[in-house]
Structure formats: C-alpha cells, structure tokens
C-alpha cells in the first residue's frame, strides 16, 4: 500500500470519485464509460466532474446496453485503452454476464497470455437502501466463480479508493462492488493523491482471540458493531476479506487458528454465497483448528424482498451476535 501521506475526510462515494480523478490524471489511456456517468456524473455521483475535466471521450455516456458496455470494453483494450466500466446497479450488471464470462475473463488466456485486458467493472451493490426491486442485489458469486476475473469489495472510504486504484492498474479484469448503503453515510480518512491497496490482502479490522467474524463490504461495520455488543463476553476478531479473488487464504487461516471459532457474514443469498467458499476452505485446511462449526449468517435463498421487509432479510446485529454466542457456547 503506498500513498502520499496527507489525509482528507471523505465519504465512500467521494473516495471513489477521488480515485477516478487520480487514475485518469495518471494514465491518459484510462477512460470511464457507462450509463449516465458523463453529463450526470453517475446516479450516485461517483463519476462527477470527470467529463468536465477529461472530456466526453474519456468519460463516456454509453447507450443503455450492459453487454455492449462490457463487449466494447474488450475491443477498447485491444486498441490499447484501459476502460473503467460502470454498471448502474448490481442487478443491472446481469445482462453483461455473458460477455464477462465468455470474453472478459477469457480473452487474455485465449491469446496465450499475450494480450492484456485491464478492464475494471465497478458497480454499487447491496441492500438496506429502501429501493425498488432489483436495486439491492449482492451478485458477487456470479463474479467470483468466473475464471479470469478478480473481485474486490471495500468496506471503508480509504479501501474504496485504494482498491479501485489497484483494480484500474491491474493488468487483469477486476470487478469492484461498492457498498451503496455507505456511499454517503460513511466518512473516513482517505490518503490524498495516489493511493493503492493491493488486491489479495485481507485486513484485520478488529483484533480478538475468542471468535472471528469474517465479512466484506457493508457487513464489516455490522460485524464491528457485533464485536462492540459482545465486548463484555468475548474478545472478537473482525476480518475484512476485501479481496475475494485473489483471496488472502493465509489471513483467514491464521485467524481461524487463533480463535478456533468462525462466523462468516454475507448479505447475498446463502446457497453458494461467498461464505460457502470461505467455509469450504476452513473445512479443508483448518479442521484441526476449529473448536466448533463454521457458522454462516447470510441473506436467505429467496429474491431480495420488498424494502419494508429488507431488515428481516439482511443479516442483522441480532443475528450476528446470536451466531457468535451460539458458537462460543458450543
């Protein structure tokens, strides 16, 4: 991780916007494209100011066509560009899945590793924002399972800036899911200027000895609250995965070895959510360290509900604390 030292207090959305300004300034082959990223500066204003500063050729309002965005990005790479594509919302990235799976993740391999496809795909994800249907999905499984792509999910403004910068500089395609719940509500200190958080390294958000809460994105602050709530009862470690692929297996295994008790918290539906992979790794590599079952606290195997019900669907403080207690009592 390198940065220039001075800090600014930014929201998560502002931190991402800052990263885009810095990276577009740094590399003139980088361009931003997507629906409403230009004139409007993005529906969450993450791309605000880019069109004015870098012109409409480097901050492009595209037609409303997610597969077209992903597909033309592949061609732009072949012409030597480094596209940063916005999908307007999590669930609106699904029309682009075919291009992502069949081309974005495979084209480098298909050239025998001789051509680079440094595409960044970024999108707001997750629930808790009281929005209409299909505006609150957590689609990471579709991306993490796909060979050839990398996936990062920040949980703080500083990591949002640093991981997005790393994604843009990475020679491979990287999907960055941004916790929209915290776009405007979370503020934090963010290094000014160039700031890169390397992919593949987890972050110990809170140190502890008795139980590990593993999470990423918007579930990290929730786990920190749970750690607070459990303060009198147990010493809780919170591990922020940050980079789902490549994954920092060592950090996961180290924490499991220390506490012997792991609760994984994820917002996506349970079956084959990313918690399943983390639990499978623990079952494969930490079986002698575990003092109890690996518990998962997740969304349910149903569509994300109408928002009056979303608090029941989303992992809650109560559910996380309950799981930790059950495990401590095992």
């Amino acid at each position, binding site marked *: 991780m390198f940065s220039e030292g001075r800090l600014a207090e930014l929201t998560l959305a502002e931190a991402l916007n800052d990263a885009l300004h810095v990276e577009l300034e740094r590399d003139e082959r980088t361009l931003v494209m997507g*629906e*409403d990223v230009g004139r409007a500066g993005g529906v969450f204003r993450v791309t605000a100011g880019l069109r004015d500063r870098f012109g409409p050729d480097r901050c492009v309002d595209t037609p*409303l066509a997610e597969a077209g965005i992903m597909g033309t990005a592949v061609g732009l790479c072949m012409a030597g560009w480094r596209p940063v594509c916005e999908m307007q919302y999590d669930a609106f990235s699904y029309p682009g899945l075919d291009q992502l799976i069949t081309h974005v993740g495979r084209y480098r391999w298909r050239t025998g590793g001789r051509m680079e496809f440094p595409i960044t795909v970024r999108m707001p994800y997750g629930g808790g924002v009281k929005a209409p249907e299909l505006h609150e999905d957590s689609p990471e499984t579709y991306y993490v399972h796909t060979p050839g792509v990398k996936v990062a999910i920040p949980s703080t403004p500083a990591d949002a800036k640093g991981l997005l910068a790393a994604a843009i500089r990475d020679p491979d395609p990287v999907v960055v899911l941004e916790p929209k719940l915290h776009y405007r509500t979370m503020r934090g200190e963010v290094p000014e200027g160039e700031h890169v958080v390397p992919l593949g390294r987890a972050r110990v958000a809170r140190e502890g000895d008795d139980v590990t809460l593993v999470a990423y994105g918007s579930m990290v602050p929730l786990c920190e609250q749970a750690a607070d709530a459990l303060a009198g009862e147990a010493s809780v470690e919170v591990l922020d995965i940050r980079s789902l692929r490549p994954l920092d297996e060592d950090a996961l295994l180290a924490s499991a070895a220390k506490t012997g008790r792991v609760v994984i918290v994820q917002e996506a539906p349970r079956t084959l959510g990313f918690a399943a992979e983390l639990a499978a790794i623990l079952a494969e590599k930490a079986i002698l360290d575990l003092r109890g079952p690996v518990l998962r606290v997740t969304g*349910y195997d149903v569509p994300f509900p109408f928002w*009056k*019900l979303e608090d029941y669907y989303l992992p809650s403080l109560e559910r996380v604390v309950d799981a930790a207690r059950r495990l401590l009592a095992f």
Partner: protein
Amino acid sequence: MAQVLPAERDLRRVIGDGDGVPDGEVEGLDEQALVDLYRSLVLLRTYDERSVVYHRQGRIGTYAIFWNHEAMQAGAVHALSDDDWIFPSYRESAIGLLRGMPAATVLSWWRGHPAGWWNPADYNVGSICVPIATHVPHAAGLAWGKKLDGEPSVAIAFFGDGATSEGAFHEGANFAGVMSAPLILLCNNNQWAISTPLSAQTAAETLADKAVGYGMPGVRVDGADVLAVYEAVREAAERARAGGGPTFVEAVTYRCAPHATADDPRAYIDLERVEEERARECVGRYDGYLRRLGVLDDALTEEIRGEAAEMLRRGIAEAESLPEPDPAVVFEWAYAEPPPALAHDLAELRRVLGGSLG
C-alpha cells in the same frame, strides 16, 4: 410479403391547436368514449402529481414520474380490450388503474410493501418491469402463446427510447416478428434515458425505423396527443388480431420532469425546452380539444378531477393502513412449496427476533 418501408417520418396528430391547426377526429369514438378517455388521463395525472407529493411527505419511496406520459398510456389502453395484455415498465407503474386495480396496490409497490404485488391474470397487466427492456420478450411470448391457442388477445409492451439499445428489446422484437405474434411495441420516446439524450442512444433517425429490421410496420405518433396514440394502437391491434403480426409504435414526447424523484435534471437538461413542452402537455391539449368539441366544461372537469382526487385520497389511506408485513413473507412465494431450509430459516429468524441483545 409486401415490402416493409421505413416508418413515416411525420408524427401522426389528431388534436389541433385551437388556432391555425384544425382538430381532427377519430372514427368510432362517441362522446361517452371521449369523456372516458379524459377520465383516464385525469386519473393518471392525479396519481402522478399526488405521488410526487406523497414522496416529499415520506409516504412513498423513490418514484418514477410520468407527467406528460399519460396520453400514451391512456390512449393505448383505451384502444385495447380488457382481454389484451399490458406489460408496463416502471414508467407506466399506475397503468393498472385503468383496468380497475386499486390505487393502494400501486402505492404499496412504491412503498416497498408486498401488497404491491398482484396476479397479472387478474388485470391482464404484467408486473412493473424494473430492468430495462427485459419485459419485451415476455410480451412477445404471451402474444405468441395466445396465438397458439387461437385466442384473439394481443399484448402491448411499453418501454423507453433508451430501452431500444438493449439486447432484450431486440430479441423480443425479433421473436415477435418471426412468430407473427399479436404484439404492439409501444416505445415511449421521451428523448431521455435518465441523463442520456437520444442522440447518444442511437444513430437511427427515428426509433420507428427499427421496425423494418424486424419485418414489421413502424408508426410515429405525437405521444402527447392521446387521440393519435389511440388511433395508432387501435390500428395495430386490429392488424395483430387479423394475423398481421406485430407493430412498432413510436410515441414521441418529452420528459418534462426529473427521471424519478431522486434525480436532478438541471445538470443535463435544457430547461427552456422543458418549459415549452410543459406548455403543450398532453392533458391540457386534450382538455382544450374536448372543450372545442363542446363535450367538456368546467363542471365536468371539476367532477372528474374530484373523483380522481378522492380515489387517491382513499388509496393512500388504504395503503398506509395496511399492517407492516410479517417476516414470514420473506420466505413465501419464491417457490410453490418452499424448501425445508426456508422454514428452518424463518423459525431461526423468529427466535432471534424474539430474543434481545441483553
């Protein structure tokens, strides 16, 4: 097959300007029908204007405004029979009202309450489609299925100018062409997809020009002229019922309001143009037409507006009086027979909700 030519360039219009441009007339529409159409326009307008207020008051969530789109919705629905199926996007969220759906249902949808779901078969109205253009194949499939059964129903899909860029629009339109499905593709060309102007959406001169590539006729109408829309859709429906296959109708209008309550268009839109368009908005134009025809006066207007306002008043009260949904609802409905794991999840959730952090 006869050669399909590109769409007419000129917008079809029926309503004049009460000045130089004379009013036309739609055959077969009697006084009662003309007033009913007005009633629908006013109902939609009232729904829309109240919704913006309800949003400000915190009674509903984000809301997609359809001000000045009422004419294409009411015109189209009135040109169809109740057996015909409507596939709305979020921009036509309240179109079910014209089929007897309670306002509370639609308001519940925007309130994030599951009372906002309905059974499409109850009104022959599909669910509000959120992901752009993805309902076009549904409408094509429904129309194809009805045709297989020899039923006379037609389907209509509403979508925007931006939607025409999506693969789903293309695949649905092409399927309809091949199956000669009784489908009307009603493109609401309000010239903006959020902040993206039509010129950044397509290089086609007109959206109706896309029809030729699917082997279907393309028609352009003034989307703020309810009678022009009515006539074009009626023609298309007749052709579809007679086995003539689908039609693309481009209804041209202009978005005079933000995309949705969350949007601030001042950053991108031409505000003068918006003012111009607001001056020729669709309800007022039809109001003027009916008055020139002598079938509408202040008293009737008053009465119709009063009815609509009352419906909305009752609708929001009803929506607000619904109990908060039970957590069980999260686990129902996705499957005919929910898998055992979901029952277990609900039990666990109830247990945790019953407990406390203490």
